[in-house]
């Protein structure tokens, strides 16, 4: 898949900008749109997802020579699901309010195509260090895009940032922004701006 000569730094930074999962490749959109109405939820979600990507990439990379080619998909899924259970239990124990708000979307990290994509295209063919760095980069890219979306939606929609009022009393909360259509529009505009600045070479 990837050129073996890629330096470790390239592997890491590629996930943040050039191959940013959400903005550039339009992967993992479900959770992106659903949790970005509040910054706090986005932070929880992106940390959880990053944890799952890194752990599953590492384990898959370590086990890559033992996993039979034909049944690799179910095995990847089980590995990913196991780490998602960790995240879910952690959130329920230490951040019950956030867990209540994003509820089932934590479970849906399993079907986040970013994770499966990294496992299939990178971790299954590379050593643990490279796979871990790649996963960290993609996780960071995902975090950046979630924060970018939430930082627009929460202030405009609630007049707050991380729960603190930032826009004052004169601001009439733009309820539209925290409703589903607002999510689609903000993401659409982000994709538009980024593609205009950095055109995508090959069509996804």
């Amino acid at each position, binding site marked *: 898949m990837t050129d073996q000569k890629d330096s470790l730094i390239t592997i890491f930074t590629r996930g943040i900008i050039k191959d940013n999962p959400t903005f550039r490749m*339009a*992967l*993992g*959109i*479900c*959770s*992106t*749109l*659903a949790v970005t109405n509040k910054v706090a939820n986005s932070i929880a979600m992106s940390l959880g997802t990053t944890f799952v990507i890194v752990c599953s990439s590492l384990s898959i990379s370590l086990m890559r020579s033992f996993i039979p080619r034909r049944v690799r*998909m*179910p095995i990847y*899924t*089980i590995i990913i*699901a*196991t780490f*998602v*259970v960790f995240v*879910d*239990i952690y959130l329920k124990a230490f951040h019950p309010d956030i867990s209540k708000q994003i*509820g*089932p979307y934590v*479970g*849906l990290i*399993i*079907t*986040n*195509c970013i994770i*499966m994509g990294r496992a299939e295209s990178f971790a299954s063919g590379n050593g643990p260090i490279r796979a871990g760095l790649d996963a960290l980069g993609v996780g960071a890219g995902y975090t950046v895009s979630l924060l970018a979306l939430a930082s627009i939606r929460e202030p405009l929609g609630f007049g707050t940032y991380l729960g603190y009022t930032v826009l004052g009393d004169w601001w009439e909360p733009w309820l539209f922004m925290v*409703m*589903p*259509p*607002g*999510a*689609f*529009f903000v*993401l*659409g*505009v982000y*994709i*538009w*701006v*980024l*593609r*205009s600045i950095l*055109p995508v070479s090959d*069509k*996804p």
Partner: protein
Amino acid sequence: MELMIIFIAAVFTHNMALTYFLGMCPFIAVSGDLRTAWGMSMAVTFVMTLASAVTWPLYHKLLVPYNVEYLQYVVFILVIAALVQIVEMVIERSSPILYNSMGVFLPLITVNCAILGVTLFMIVRKYTYIESLIYSVGSGIGWGVAILAMAAIREKLRFANVPEGLKGPGITMIIAGLMAMGFMGFAGMLNVQ
């Protein structure tokens, strides 16, 4: 009556794709033309119904009595993956025509979050068995309606003059936003959680 409300809510007011953002990846990737979208929506509705028919008893009769609810993600995703495999094999043997129209989409469905989403939502909302079945059929149809509408719009869009950077996923997002606004109009119709 209660069942009717759940059904209508699943199709319109709580549309899987446009209100809960589930199944977005295939929603964007497969909505290029109408035929593919039709195959995909059929396959999704079918597997969704089967999946909730199997996972509901598993959760309430097996996981709850043994206090291992936290295993639900692992169990559900395994059930879905296994179901998809079985359905694919059965359809391939029994009906080549159906296989041609729907078969290629089946492997993609394992990673369609709408399926897992439906099974998780039906647990969270504490639906009974019948309610869960109605809910999953409705959700499948609702997802299908959304992707078919999107595919029809995108077919027309080929002749439109879209700005360079907005082509592909960008414009799809904007259209999905407009559609979501339309579906929000249904919200006044029913009052369910």
